[in-house]
């Protein structure tokens, strides 16, 4: 059995363990409510959003429904992975894993892959259901490009949250601290980032919340690159014609790469020197 097959085999075991867990059973209705539920709501032919806008394109509906990913799926990713390292570390099973000849780097990659699959595969299925709902409600399929971009961006944001959570889990020895780290980080990027943006804008002399102020839009767009949720929306916006927040596609992709590579590298490095 070569290294790649071993990594995939271990990832599959982690995936099966998590996807069949009780917490997944509890989170599944939440995901159904947040993903196909939002797609159903935003694809209502009579819906009028607060700005008077009416989404009539499948990608537009997918974009608004991505709020379900930001609020629901990322939280589920955190709740699924928060004890990815700390539970086995506390029970002593982690020491048994570290005593196996499989390099720690490979174990870390398998852990990330398994956890990520456990949240992404159910979410991907629900996204396909959402696309079908949009087709039924709007009478139009999302283009392959739009659907792929939505899946890719969603897969990335879930990967980022899984890696952050595993990183937090590897730095703590008890479950309480691990979940506090994970939820705290989710809270920061999901709710508090707007506050951070407002504070930076205020300090920079930019009019806060002025929708037609280009300075505010550019600042918000730039600061969003420093948040995984912001990069996620920038990625989705690359498929929307009417949106320009002053961030070029290459900048968005570079930040997506950075958000993928840096925490993963940090986690692998942490696993390499982790003690039981």
């Amino acid at each position, binding site marked *: 059995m070569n290294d790649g097959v*071993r990594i995939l085999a*271990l990832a599959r075991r982690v995936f099966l363990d998590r996807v*069949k867990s009780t917490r997944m059973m509890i989170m599944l209705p939440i995901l159904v409510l947040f993903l196909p539920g939002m797609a159903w709501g935003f694809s209502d032919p009579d819906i009028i959003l607060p700005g008077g806008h009416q989404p009539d394109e499948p990608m537009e509906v997918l974009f608004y429904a991505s709020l379900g990913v930001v609020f629901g799926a990322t939280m589920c990713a955190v709740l699924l992975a928060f004890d990815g390292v700390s539970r086995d570390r506390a*029970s*002593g099973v982690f*020491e*048994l894993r570290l005593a196996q000849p*499989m390099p720690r780097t490979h174990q870390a990659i398998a852990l990330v892959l398994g956890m990520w699959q456990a949240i992404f595969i159910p979410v991907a299925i629900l996204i396909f259901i959402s696309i079908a709902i949009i087709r039924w409600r709007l009478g139009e399929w999302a283009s392959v490009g739009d659907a792929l971009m939505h899946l890719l961006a969603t897969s990335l944001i879930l990967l980022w949250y899984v890696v952050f959570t595993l990183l937090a889990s590897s730095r703590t020895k008890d479950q309480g601290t691990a979940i506090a780290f994970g939820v705290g980080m989710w809270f920061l990027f999901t709710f508090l980032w707007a506050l951070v943006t407002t504070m930076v804008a205020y300090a920079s002399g930019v009019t806060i919340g002025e929708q037609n102020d280009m300075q505010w839009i550019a600042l918000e767009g730039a600061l969003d690159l420093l948040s995984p949720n912001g990069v996620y929306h920038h990625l989705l916006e690359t498929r929307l014609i009417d949106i320009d927040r002053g961030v070029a596609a290459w900048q968005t992709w570079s930040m997506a790469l950075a958000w993928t590579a840096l925490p993963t590298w940090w986690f692998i490095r942490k696993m390499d020197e982790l003690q*039981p």
Partner: protein
Amino acid sequence: MLELKNVTFRHLIHAPTRIKPWRKQPGPGVLGVSLRLQPGEILGLVGPNGAGKTTLLRMIAGVLPIEKGKIHLNKNGTFEALDGSSLRTVVGHMPEQVRWQGRQTVEDALFELAQMRGSSLKRVNDLLRLVGLAERTKTPLSSLSQGMRQRLTLAAALLGTPKYLLLDEPLNGLDPVAAAAFIRLLKQLTTKGVSIVISSHQVEGLQAITDRVALMHRGQVLACGTLEAIAQNLGLTSTIEARGIGDAPDFSWCNLTEQTEEKGQWTAVLHDTQPNMLAEVLSRGIDFTAWIPKPPGIVEMLCAATGMDVEEVGLDIATAAMLPHRRLGGEEE
């Protein structure tokens, strides 16, 4: 043969200052330990809590890095230095009290580890049969008793057919029947050339199964050899507990440690310093109902090896200071 040469590892402990609240400094660990593991022998690693037994086992298992020193494997007369990865291939490690939990079955949990070693499902089932868990392959981990968890951990340590087996407090949680079966299994393994290191904070349980013991304290091996040889080197003698009915006999002719009398029964603890002690007692017409030889315990050995008294050893907590210790020859380091 596996040979440890001056291996050292020190845990980093928090030592915050006002300027650097995250500061860490080297603390307790294992300091310059040298040992040899012969094929087919059982080595007992004994010492009080915090002596460094678990740290040393983790270093040999390739779980903790070796900061200084080397571990060599004797292969056909040539010594080959082993890194962490090579160690993990030849060594099986059974950590102390693994709390297996969750809905995963016994077979699945072991197969997960087996896949990390490239072992097959057949090997997993063979091992489960060997440790007496053949009937429990489909049992969820949460339903296992402590003894069964210990057996499962042993099976995990035996994956990959290791030449060296490290067992950290393996008899904890096992009932006497399971412990006897466990010891029998260890003896079987040694006949196949497997070297076993067992750590324990109790000498008594190890006497019957170990070929040699290494006495550890504050991260150092103070003495290594057979229990008798260590006791002799430290100038310690065995004691004999004699019991009888009626009035306590006169033991003033020998080295008496302690004598008590209660409800028509007497107990005397004698130092076994004279040759043919039993014959001497019988010749003096002393009538007894029990004659129990007792070898020196770990506390006595530690006291003799460190020069500390019982209270000091008992209350001693390994600190970052790593105070010098007196070796067998009396020299300090």
